[in-house]
């Protein structure tokens, strides 16, 4: 689409990119979606996010906004006429920010560890991951959404991980629903919103993507867990002690 006012640089399985897609859908914003080949980063991506070189990047009228949570707030503040994503009072807003930040600090790394480590380390990682989910579940409590009656920012921050649960449950041989039934009930409630159900890819598709990428990387020989990331990093990994670039 030539001269599109809103462009999104993204990568389909990214839970961070999905946050932005949900926010755009909630607001009914039309945009030009540009799928990024992450190992082979485009000039546009490098130009628009020179600091982190990561997706998602929202480009609005030619100007880039980076970091998914910051993008979601930007979308909410720029398109004010419908579907407010942030709570209206400052205190609840602060709580929403706190919980989105908690998801950012805790969920991604714990999820990754629980699926990629082995043996005793994996068991420990699974336990930690469930503990984190229980904290989030506790925060939601009996409310329909994180902050109360309305779906919003904090829900968006977490719900995009839902399509990744199946992958890590399968790898780690456990059931998140069994451990955190209320959290899954919340996720399913969010999935009833079109913005969420149309954005999150099918869990099996995510699983296939992950397994394909893992086989290309040769899982057993990945030396650093933190390198094993489809969405961060530079598509360069350590394999048998040598740097390799992986295309997927």
């Amino acid at each position: 689409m030539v001269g599109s006012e809103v462009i999104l640089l993204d990568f389909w399985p990214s839970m961070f990119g999905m946050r932005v897609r949900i926010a755009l859908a909630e607001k009914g914003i039309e945009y030009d979606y540009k799928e990024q080949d992450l190992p082979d980063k485009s000039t546009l991506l490098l130009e628009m996010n020179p600091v982190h070189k990561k997706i998602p990047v929202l480009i609005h009228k030619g100007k880039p906004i980076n970091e998914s949570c910051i993008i979601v707030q930007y979308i909410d503040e720029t398109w004010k006429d419908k579907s407010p994503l942030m709570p209206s009072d400052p205190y609840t807003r602060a709580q929403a920010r706190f919980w989105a930040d908690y998801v950012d600090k805790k969920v991604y790394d714990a999820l990754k560890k629980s699926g990629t480590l082995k043996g005793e380390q994996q068991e420990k990682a699974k336990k930690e991951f469930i503990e984190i989910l229980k904290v989030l579940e506790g925060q939601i409590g009996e409310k329909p959404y994180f902050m109360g009656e309305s779906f919003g920012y904090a829900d968006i921050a977490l719900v995009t991980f839902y399509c990744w649960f199946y992958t890590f449950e399968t790898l780690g041989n456990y059931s998140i629903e069994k451990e955190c039934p209320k959290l899954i009930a919340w996720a399913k409630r969010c999935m009833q919103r079109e913005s969420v159900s149309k954005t999150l890819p099918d869990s099996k598709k995510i699983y296939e993507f992950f397994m394909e990428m893992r086989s290309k990387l040769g899982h057993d020989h990945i030396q650093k867990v933190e390198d094993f990331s489809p969405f961060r990093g530079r598509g360069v990994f350590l394999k048998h002690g040598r740097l390799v670039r992986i295309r997927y």
Partner: protein
Amino acid sequence: MANEVKLHGVTRSPFVCRAVIALNLKDVKYEFVDEDLSNKSSDLIKYNPVYKKVPVLLHNGNPISESLVIVEYIDEVWKGVPLLPQDAYEKAQARFWAKFMDDKCFPTVFKAVTSLGEEQAVAEVHEALQFLENELKVKGSKFFGGDNINLVDIAATFVAFWIGAVEEALGIELLPKDKFPKLTEWSDNYVNCQAVKDSLPPREDLIAIYKKRFGKA
């Protein structure tokens, strides 16, 4: 309605200092509750059960945790000096750089400090600080916030003040003036702002703490 404000913290923490600076900029009257982090108060654990860390701001008994969340909250509740730009795009940029301080700058500085200035660790600090140097160059202004300090400057308080203390305490160099002229100039201007000056802990105290905590035995 009563407007009771308390801040749970420790004076040596650059994160607590962010909240102190924001409160001082807004001229908010508050009570500082000094915490002993080796023996956390039941209040701290009650108000921040998730992390059990400082700072925690209590506004009429309602707790808010995480320094950057606290600073934004202070900005939204108390009018006066704005801590964030009005424009949505500029606001997003400010949040980006504030997050950058926590995601990249602080961890690299911490690693350099705990490794007592190991070469690779210091190189990573310089890589992170270079982005800040460039940002100041591009902006061409006195502060990250322009003519006045904003969220980004506040988030970078540890760069302006804590790095110098740690350098002196451990005899390492993290922010060489010749490599970072803009950042050095910004640091001098920033620590001389009244609200910042009123909020910083005594430098000798920090130096003593760091000598004890990280220095060679």
